[in-house]
């Protein structure tokens, strides 16, 4: 799980003769994200060959932008999955955060940042409730978050209609504080004539932080442990419940972040969006090598998974294929990735 990112490995004192035969290739193949990386390269090459517009730098920027909007919540979803849990409410929690911020600021004529902060509290609360219910009741998180998914879906629509009389929120672009919000969550800057959305930078930052936490800190050790075996972790004194609730709240946090991006990118929020995205986050994590049962996986892998999603999503358009086929490809991709990961993992285990 952590072999290749060593800081200052000592010059291997007295190398054990029994590890000598473990090749660099074997070590590489044992990493969780290797399947996703291979898949990403193949898909990139396919679209590079068949879709000339895909080769443009601006297309690449679009692919990266789309990938980042799914990749940011996927960071937290991957951590949660490594910790042994699911969150099916993540997709609608994104929408809920955006709706809360938009309606609160507009209806109360408050500064945009009041709405932003209240939305953050609401998103963290959603995560906390999910986590609390899971650890206190022992009901599988699949069911608990399926429940909160439907509740949020209903709340998003019903409350928006009550407050605005419409299925979407009012335009918030002339509210005080909007400009700063747009700068933080949804600005664009140009590099060599190509517009890059700021979400790409945030995405990279979140992936780096999460990877560091996962591999380098005791919290990361606990995340792997509670996903691998919660009872064993509890027996050696790991605060299992706190770790799990914390992971659900991390999902809440990144759902909020993504919600803020949607709000500041489009000025209004449709109350019905976000449904189904939770599966895309999970697909990204699984394609990236996260084990569905927990205890194994990588955030970098989930990022590559999101990139695969972004490339396929945009590549089909650039290639001029009928986009109706997109979900078929996505499903085939998921199956392929799972089979490939299984194969690689078995080979890695056998070579030990």
């Amino acid at each position, binding site marked *: 799980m952590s072999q290749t990112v060593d800081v200052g490995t000592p010059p291997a004192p007295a190398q054990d003769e029994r590890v000598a035969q473990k090749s660099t290739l074997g070590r590489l193949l044992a990493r969780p994200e290797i399947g996703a990386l291979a898949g990403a390269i193949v898909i990139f090459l396919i679209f590079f060959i068949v879709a000339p517009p895909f080769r443009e730098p601006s297309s690449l920027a679009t692919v990266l932008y789309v990938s980042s909007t799914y990749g940011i919540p996927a960071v937290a979803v991957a951590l949660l999955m490594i910790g042994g849990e699911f969150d099916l409410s993540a997709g609608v929690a994104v929408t809920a955060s955006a709706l809360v911020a938009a309606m609160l600021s507009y209806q109360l004529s408050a500064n945009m940042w009041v709405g932003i902060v209240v939305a953050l509290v609401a998103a963290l609360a959603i995560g906390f409730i999910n986590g609390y219910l899971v650890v206190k009741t022992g009901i599988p998180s699949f069911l608990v978050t399926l429940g909160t998914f439907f509740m949020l879906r209903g709340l998003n629509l019903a409350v928006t209609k009550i407050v605005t009389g419409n299925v979407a929120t009012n335009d918030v672009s002339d509210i005080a504080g909007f400009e700063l919000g747009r700068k933080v969550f949804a600005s664009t800057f140009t590099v060599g004539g190509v517009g890059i959305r700021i979400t790409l930078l945030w995405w990279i930052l979140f992936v780096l932080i999460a990877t560091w936490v996962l591999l380098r800190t005791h919290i990361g050790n606990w995340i*792997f442990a509670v996903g691998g075996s919660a009872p064993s972790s509890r027996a050696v*004194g790991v605060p299992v419940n706190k770790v799990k609730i914390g992971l659900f709240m991390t999902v809440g946090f990144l759902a909020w972040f993504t919600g803020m991006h949607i709000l500041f990118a489009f000025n209004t929020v449709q109350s019905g969006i976000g449904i189904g995205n939770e599966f895309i986050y999970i697909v990204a994590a699984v394609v990236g090598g996260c084990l569905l049962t927990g205890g194994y996986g990588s955030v970098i892998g989930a990022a590559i998974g999101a990139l695969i999603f972004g490339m396929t999503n945009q590549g089909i358009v650039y290639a001029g294929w009928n986009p109706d086929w997109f979900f078929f490809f996505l499903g085939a991709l998921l199956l392929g990735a799972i089979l490939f990961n299984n194969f690689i993992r078995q080979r890695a285990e056998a070579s030990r």
Partner: protein
Amino acid sequence: MTATADTRTAAPLVRLTDAGKNYGNIIALQGVTLEVGGSEVTCVLGDNGAGKSTLIKIIAGLHQHTHGSYEVEGEDVRFDSPREALDRGIATVYQDLAVVPLMPVWRNFFLGNEVRKGPAMDIAAMRKTAKQELLDMGIDLRDVDQPIGTLSGGERQCVAIARAVHFGAKVLILDEPTAALGVKQSGVVLRYIIQAKERGLGVVFITHNPHHAYPVGDRFLILKRGRSLGYWKKSDITMGELTGLMAGGTELEELHHELEAAGAEDTGLRDVARAFEHEVAELHVGGSSRQGTPPSDSTGTRQEPPQP
């Protein structure tokens, strides 16, 4: 039934006096007296459902006793969590919960006690320490980065024990560490129990196998249906007596007859019956000739009711 008269002046590391536990109106454990001091191994024997797990859970801090008293180094205690017990130096190694299989050995070794350097972990030091500590206990690992699930069951138990010793445990509670192991692996674990004892630790060794308990134990507590059948020093009981008490010779004989009758139509059952016949014969011979012999193969024939 010799109740041990403690002649030492220092309080034992762990002492339970007439301890019991009720779950609602169900009496899971009743009237258990037990103690373990430094450099001592106290064995707790009993068949499935005898109350062994309840006893461990009380000592380990997962449950609280409802009757009697529980003292650690002479001080009355009542633990609310395993963490509190750990802080008092009472470490429990569970049979199947010892480690997280997918995690590397060094991560398992330091789980819950990570060495920190600033906000991060000091991974180089942790790797080195894990390797060294395991080597000191006689486990020479190829690679502390391999998932611990790739080790054998015996090695995993040993890593868990070495970990508890490293983190300053004064008392080790071992929950059936040999139950799922083969003969050779069990021998490895038993050797570790002796080593922990030689390091000055108190050990509570829970098992249903008297052949494993007798060679390493100093005191023996037998549980049956939630009650203590007795508590002996090694000098007061022989291997044969222990085995007889533990298994319940007459019950075993009845079971043998039953199986034999059923075995008339079923060859598989007949084999089981034959194995029991052997076991019963052994019990009648008495244990004097077998005393102190290394754990034998008789673990293979457990007293589980066969499914017809």
